[in-house]
């Protein structure tokens, strides 16, 4: 039996409390290291690669190769984060989530370039997250290709970022892993959306923030454009193998087999091209137009080189 007098006991409690307090102070993270937007681009800024065909994984590879190849972007040992759209509990056929073949091929290409850790991550909306990852096929595709697949679920997975140019929001949150990554690849799917008409690349970045609802309460299109000024993916690979024409973003609805994968560095150009697939003009999609106006990228496709492969 340990004999402990009152003084010792109180001392021990004080010591423990102090240690916990100091530990707590240390764990509070404030500002991120480097925003993806500040990195120099590895591919020609004004070029889009558009691959057409029927095999989703082959198209993904063709599009990236047309742009200059994944080895230009991913160096040995790099930490790569891939952000597909896996918000919903829907099987891939519905077209509400990024085609798992596209995600798998992206991971394989990164692996071939010697990437270190590869993480496939999204802030999923439907629950349970495990089911979302399973039903969308992303868990299987990502794991088989050699990536970790994670559904961010807790506020602690996000840290705060400042948005200097923001018009509707001056700061927001971003997945910590994206801020830590050497390479950040956005892998959205093209589909319709109730609130924003379409959801393509920049809208997919809404899955990087913790409190989505705040954007709906604010000005949604402006928030998307504001966020695009700071979170700029190193590469956007838009899955348009099968696009959702009605019932978006969650579906089910009418889908159309378009058989395209679009790769590009300029998020506005990618989205502008994506709008065309729905026979819409980028000018009609407010968040694309606003991002263009804020200088995030070029929505006039006449000024963009399009490599069709």
């Amino acid at each position, binding site marked *: 039996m340990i004999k402990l007098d009152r003084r010792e006991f109180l001392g021990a409690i004080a010591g423990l409390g102090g240690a916990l307090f100091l530990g707590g102070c240390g764990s509070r993270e404030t500002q991120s290291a480097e925003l993806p937007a500040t990195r120099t681009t590895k591919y020609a800024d004004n070029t889009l690669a558009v691959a057409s065909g029927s095999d989703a994984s082959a198209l993904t590879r063709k599009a990236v190769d047309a742009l200059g190849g994944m080895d230009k972007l991913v160096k040995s040992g790099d930490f790569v984060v891939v952000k597909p759209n896996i918000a919903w509990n829907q099987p891939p056929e519905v077209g509400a989530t990024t085609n798992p073949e596209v995600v798998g091929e992206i991971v394989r290409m990164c692996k071939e370039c010697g990437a270190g850790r590869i993480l496939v991550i999204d802030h999923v*909306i439907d*629950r349970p997250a*495990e*089911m979302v990852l399973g*039903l969308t096929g992303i868990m299987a595709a990502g794991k088989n290709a050699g990536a970790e697949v994670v559904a961010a*679920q807790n506020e602690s997975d996000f840290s705060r970022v400042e948005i200097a140019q923001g018009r509707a929001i001056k700061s927001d949150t971003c997945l910590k892993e994206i801020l830590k990554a050497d390479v950040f690849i956005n892998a959205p799917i093209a589909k319709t959306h109730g609130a924003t008409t379409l959801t393509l690349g920049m809208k997919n970045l809404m899955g990087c923030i913790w409190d989505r609802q705040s954007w709906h309460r604010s000005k949604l299109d402006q928030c998307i454009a504001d966020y695009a000024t700071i979170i700029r993916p190193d590469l956007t690979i838009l899955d348009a193998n099968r696009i959702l024409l009605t019932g978006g973003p969650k579906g089910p609805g009418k889908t159309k087999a378009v058989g395209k994968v679009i790769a590009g560095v300029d998020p506005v150009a990618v989205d502008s091209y994506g709008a065309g697939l729905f026979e819409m003009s980028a000018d009609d999609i407010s968040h694309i137009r606003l991002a263009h106006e804020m200088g995030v990228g070029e929505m006039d496709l006449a000024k963009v080189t399009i490599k069709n492969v």
Partner: protein
Amino acid sequence: MENLRRVVQVVAFGVFLYLFALTIGRYSADAQANILTSKAPIDTFFRMDPLLGLTTMVATRRIIMVMLAYGLPVVILSVLAGRFFCGWICPLGTTLDAADVLFFRRRQKTATSHSAGLRNIKYYLLAGIVIAALFGAQIAYFLDPITIITRAFTFSVFPLAAAISAGGVNIPLVPADVQYFFRLNFLAAAVLIGIIALNAISRRFWCRNLCPLGALLGALSKFSIVRRVVKSNCINCRKCIPGCKMGAICDDPVQYQAPECIYCYSCTPICPALSTRIAPTLASDGYNSGLDLSKRRVLQASGVGLAIAVLGKTNVAAKTSRTGRVKTSSPVLIRPPGALPEDEFVDRCVRCSECMKVCPTNGLQPALGEAGFEGIWTPVLVPRIGECTRHCNLCSQVCSSQAIGPLEVSEKEHVFIGTAVIDRSQCIAWNSDKQCLVCDECCSYRAVVWQTIDGVRRPFVEEHKCVGCGICENVCPIQPLSAIRVFSFGDKRHLSRQEQKAYFEQAPKTEQ
């Protein structure tokens, strides 16, 4: 034998905990839905519990096969071997024995605690419960030991385990991705802690005096053929009297009260003359099987049971709407899909809380007042906490009394548990022209649609498609009350599945 009994107790408790832990769903790629991690019936203890089986079947006037199949063997064994269940199997009994070793070692062993007055309370409680069941009210859940311990574990221990798991210390079979919270968790824990605390008065105070399941098994043991027999070489040292956990041995140590004996074999090793044994026999020396109950008290207890049954049925919660179908008392009384019509549901539900434990969104919560007194602790969907997620039917998979009937995931699109209503005065797409439509976005059944009115897309609910899953209420950005809320008026439990399907098929075909 005493050691064997201890081993069996530990094993049975282990099985109970293991089954409890297994009461959790995981996504299955083959089923493309959530399925239980275990193929074994995780509700085994509930099925075995004859008190729950009896009262549920009596209250609902239906034979429930799973309860009969597991409960009947326990009944037969109890007729032959008395309250062996209490001494060897019951997880609450084991908890009390463990608590004795851990917390109450220094307590004086009260030799004279076989006071019939206290002891008879459990029979009166049983009488009240059975009478209430006869009059159609299932109230056994309140005092049944298996439900008490399971509820305490679900509402209080499980959320703690989930928090530890989420904190990085991964506990097997505990989800790390959903933090569970339950209403009434204090009450559930307090009941269990209170029962443990009663051990300070005497060992197994609960089992001796209060447990209605013990009373039922004791009453069954009248013709038990396994008996305690004291040989004539008894030296009358009286060591067995305080040694008995149940205080079942009389002043004359040869005599014992058979309905109180739980066959723990504590009295055999402490007998210095080795004259005590417990064995199959028909010898009736010292065997007192009679229950010395006061008729007056039995009548009083029956009166209380009757009163509870009648009061439950005349509570405002039982008042129906003008159509005679839907209860008017609580517009937010949303039951899990597959639940039986309300009257039968409250009588069948044994309040084991397993449906709430498996609910992957934590949306199933114990009812507070929504369903009236009769419905306390029954599951109710609270969409602001969690929605009834699309590809899941776990609650119907775990329900031992089938108060939540079998339900295929594919049926969920036409099993209506409620209907969402948009409050346009709160909705920001209606009152301030915001680009919101989160409800339309998240709806799993495409029941929320938009129309462009005055240049802005505004949400509408299509009642034929809205099953009331509550995901819209969960995700709505308006605080604290959602601008789209699910109410129970769309509940169609009173209709057959075919009728509900026909209703669903009338849904207008819209595309957008």
